[in-house]
């Protein structure tokens, strides 16, 4: 299939603001779907609520648009009930790791075979630019006008600590790298997590002296270090940096596969 076949072009133009990174992420996802021969019938895109949660509006696959923060819990039920489905959860930073943090860590720990693609723009865009769980300390948002006093999550560390077998961070300023990591994550058996850093010039940028998307992308670039370079840096040097690339890629049996053994044990009367 051509990547355009996954897009509801009749719904264009995208409703996202000029300079928003969501369109670029959506492009990388549908190109990955095409490269991996995903069928519309066997693909389910589960979205949360927020700007990025609107992504399903533009997709022709099966979809589930649920509640704020709960995408992974819905995705868990979908995947476990029908393992042949390709299940992808699209979440924002407020969605996926602030209100939805509990589902996030447990989906990673449980190693459910879904791919979570979290777009992190460091604030709640849809509701007007309030601070989220990933907003960097000292930054300005519409609810931290005196400077944000909380530290933001390092989501990839969180995913790794929770046991996710595939963890990667990428950004919209490097589309080929983004697409490659998304494709790898989609193809990985087990819980795979890709964080995409994306600009929100309308809110986070404007509030922090970066009205242009290019300025925000430069800000991200300046904070970015590769996985290889990070290995040569001290924790102090890595403070406030974003380590880009594949952070975790290990093998581990996913929940659905393990459960087949439970079914086998139960059927042969081996409980206890």
């Amino acid at each position, binding site marked *: 299939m051509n990547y355009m076949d996954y897009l509801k072009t009749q719904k264009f133009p995208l409703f996202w603001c000029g300079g928003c990174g969501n369109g670029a992420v959506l492009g990388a996802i549908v190109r990955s779907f095409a490269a991996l021969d995903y069928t519309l019938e066997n693909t389910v895109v589960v979205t949360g609520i927020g700007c990025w949660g609107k992504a399903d509006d533009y997709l022709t696959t099966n979809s589930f648009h649920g*509640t704020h923060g709960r995408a992974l819990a819905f995705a*868990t039920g979908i995947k476990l*009930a029908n393992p042949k489905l390709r299940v992808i959860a699209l979440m924002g930073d407020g969605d996926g790791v602030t209100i939805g943090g509990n*589902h996030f860590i*447990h989906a990673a720990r449980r190693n459910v075979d879904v791919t979570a693609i979290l777009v992190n723009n460091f604030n709640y865009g849809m509701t007007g630019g309030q601070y989220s769980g990933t907003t960097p300390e000292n930054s300005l948002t519409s609810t931290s006008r005196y400077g944000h006093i909380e530290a933001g999550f390092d989501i990839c560390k969180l995913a790794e600590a929770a046991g996710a077998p595939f963890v990667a961070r990428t950004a919209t300023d490097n589309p080929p790298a983004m697409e490659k990591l998304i494709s790898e994550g989609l193809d990985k058996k087990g819980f795979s997590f890709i964080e995409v850093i994306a600009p929100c010039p309308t809110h986070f940028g404007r509030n922090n002296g970066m009205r242009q998307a290019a300025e925000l992308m430069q800000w991200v670039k300046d904070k970015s270090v590769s996985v290889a370079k990070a290995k040569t840096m001290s924790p102090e040097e890595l403070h406030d940096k974003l380590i880009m690339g594949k952070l975790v890629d290990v093998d581990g049996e996913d929940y659905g596969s393990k*459960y087949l053994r439970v079914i086998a044990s*139960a059927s042969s009367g081996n409980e206890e």
Partner: protein
Amino acid sequence: MKQIIFGMGNEAITEGALAAGARFYAGYPITPSSEIAELSSIRLPRLGGMYVQMEDEIGSIAAIIGASVAGVKSYTATSGPGFSLMQENLGVAVMGEIPCVIINVQRSGPSTGLATKPAQGDVMQAQWGTHGDHGIIALSPSSVQECYDLTVRAFNLAERYRTPVILLADEIVGHMREGYQIRELLPHDIIDRKKPTCPPRDYQPYDFSGEEDEIAPLAPYGSEYITRINGSGHDESGDACGRPDNAAKFNSHYLNKFRINQKDIIETKSFDLDDAEYAIITFGCSVRSSKAALKLARQKGIKAGLLQLVTIWPFPKEQVREVCSRVKGVVVPEMNLGQILGEVSKTNPGQIPIVGVNRVDGQMITPYEILARLEEVAK
């Protein structure tokens, strides 16, 4: 062969779910519902089904909703605090029109309340706990046999009307042990959701035009159809839609579909009502003391009858109104401070006394308390 089993209400609920064809359970342990989780975790994998223990009740109901759209009949069990957490995604099942069964083995509230004590305080929450206008189905068992039968019925109603169904049990019926029969279900006793028959490109998961019962067919994920489920305002296709006429149509539909089909949904049971001058109207565990009170009242010469509300929501208005129209007084025993009493009163033209017998101390209402109230009303 009719095999009578001596068992607990929570066991009968689990047996009912399995008999109805449920093969997916997601839940979070909570007293007094945990036996349902435990038994499901043992029984489901033997049937090729799945038990998942989620991180909380928000995730539990989300997982069963997801599993249901993937084509597997799904259920969860909880009690007050967990039911409160489920209200958010209960709304997704309402608006997304997803069949699923939520068992609430009620305990004393609010908050953590008295965790091991019974109550019937979640009646209004079952209908109105999730925000916005909508209908819902809630059934309330009063015996272990009804735990089995009504669980089967809950799945059938969920499938037929594409809706979450709440089995509003309580700690008394959930933990009580008595004889019950695992009724053999024939194929026609089990209802599965309507499947689309149109060409795949014409399928719209929310298009109920041309459906007499206002229920659109639902294709599972992974079929030849594309299924787009949406808990936000959506049109027939499942695409987000904010048009006022569309919102008015669907928001009305979430209530209308229950009104149109209420004859099939509503079930009540009548005891000694034919010649009754006074009526007891009640549900769930309170039916049991009411039946004893009825006997005592008749012995004392009070012509009492009993209307058991098996379906709580949609509220059996017609049945209640009919009883109220021909008796001189009504007593409504319930382990809350008058939630059903208010609904009964609404149907009453206002000429007869309608009074409650209420306890919120975690103790069952006794037959003598009900009898005393009947005597007052009959004075």
